[in-house]
């Protein structure tokens, strides 16, 4: 299925940033297509409750919010192709996207591929997701009220997760491979003072113990090599995120952590290509900042298209 049609904008990724870009583009009269590999929502769709997205005073689950955003964009004429982009050529006047459902063309591209939590990379991890292995304390923490949980990591997100979980779980054990936190000082004091938070320094998780659900972890002391078992009901993996930039690695400027370098205008180093949502390097990755990027990207894309001869419509594939 090769479509020779040239869209005004193709949005790669159907998360909140992507569908907001699609909604703004469609409302601006642009011919816009979203490429989504599975279903709307991205990381947000896995969140059981989003309590910090304004307008939903009782909170809303991420999957439902994603469907609402998709329907809202589609109400104004945005289309979705359920396809995963495999290769992208973004430097020309017409951008080419090869997917597992054919090749698509567009004058502008909003890259909204998001980010994914980094896995521990140990045996059985994927199989135990939802059964004691979790990557989002704010999403899945409530399930472990009164239980014992381990948090793996030593950065800001691990410290924030441990603090949040300390208010829900009975016991929180922070497992870190170094002998001190990398987290900002503001987290240290409350963590050290929390009565139900303890620390396992110089420790790495070598095995997930389970009976179909996590029952504990095996830890190895990085200094002595000594192994021990730590019983727990869940393991929250908080060792950072990886932006989904494999598609554009050779074309867009990325920072050291792999995020696309673009300022608040979302403009990348390539004309007509915008970085939207979690894939963009920025201080706060949230649904509310992703949707903001989506709106801004369309504003920039409109200005870019207007600057081209005949709005770019004379450009050839």
């Amino acid at each position, binding site marked *: 299925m090769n479509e020779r049609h040239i869209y005004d904008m193709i949005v790669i990724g159907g998360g909140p940033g992507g569908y907001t870009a699609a909604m703004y583009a469609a409302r601006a009269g642009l011919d816009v297509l979203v490429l989504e*590999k*599975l*279903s*709307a*929502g991205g990381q947000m*769709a*896995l*969140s*059981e409750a989003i309590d910090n997205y304004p307008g939903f005073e009782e909170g809303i689950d991420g*999957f439902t919010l994603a469907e609402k955003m998709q329907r809202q964009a589609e109400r104004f004429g945005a289309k979705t192709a*359920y*396809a*995963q982009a495999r290769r992208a050529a973004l430097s020309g006047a017409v951008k080419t996207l090869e997917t*597992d*459902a054919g090749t698509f063309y567009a004058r502008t591209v909003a890259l909204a591929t998001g980010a994914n939590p980094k896995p521990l990379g140990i045996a059985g991890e*994927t*199989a135990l*997701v*939802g*059964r004691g292995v979790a990557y989002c304390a704010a*999403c899945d923490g409530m399930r472990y009220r009164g239980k014992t949980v381990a948090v793996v990591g030593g950065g800001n997100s691990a410290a924030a997760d441990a603090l949040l979980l300390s208010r829900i779980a009975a016991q929180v054990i922070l497992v870190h491979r170094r002998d001190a936190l990398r987290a900002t000082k503001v987290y240290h004091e409350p963590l050290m003072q929390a009565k139900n938070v303890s620390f396992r320094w110089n420790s790495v998780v070598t095995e997930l113990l389970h009976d*179909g659900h996590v029952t504990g972890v095996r830890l190895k002391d990085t200094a002595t090599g000594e192994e021990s078992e730590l019983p727990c009901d869940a393991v929250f993996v908080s060792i950072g995120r990886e932006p989904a930039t494999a598609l554009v690695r050779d074309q867009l400027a990325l920072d050291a952590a792999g995020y696309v370098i673009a300022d608040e205008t979302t403009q990348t180093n390539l004309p007509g290509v915008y970085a939207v949502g979690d894939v963009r390097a920025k201080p706060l990755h949230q649904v509310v900042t992703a949707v903001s990027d989506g709106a801004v990207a369309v504003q920039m894309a409109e200005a870019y298209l207007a600057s081209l001869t005949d709005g770019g419509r004379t450009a050839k594939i």
Partner: protein
Amino acid sequence: MAAMEMNREQFERMTQGDKPVLVDFWAPWCGYCRRIGPAFERIAEAYADRLTAAKVNIDEEAQLAEAERIEVIPTLMLYRNGKVVDSIVAPESQAAIDRFIRDALAG
């Protein structure tokens, strides 16, 4: 036609037949199962003439899930003539589900 929710009795009757049956083992608490849901429905529609698509809630059909050795969800299993043709765990995209079905039906 939307994928039907299947109980154990329906499962045992339908998977015996010639027409392949694609079963999505899922549970309401499984976030990724929900994400697969819309893609599974689109696949069910696209393959409506070649297979029956159904869903089994493993919380409600715990015995069936155990009998089928479902340890991880979402798991998609394709059955024909009372046998498992193939299975896939947590497919990453709609295309991955599509590929799984095409390979399984061809094999």
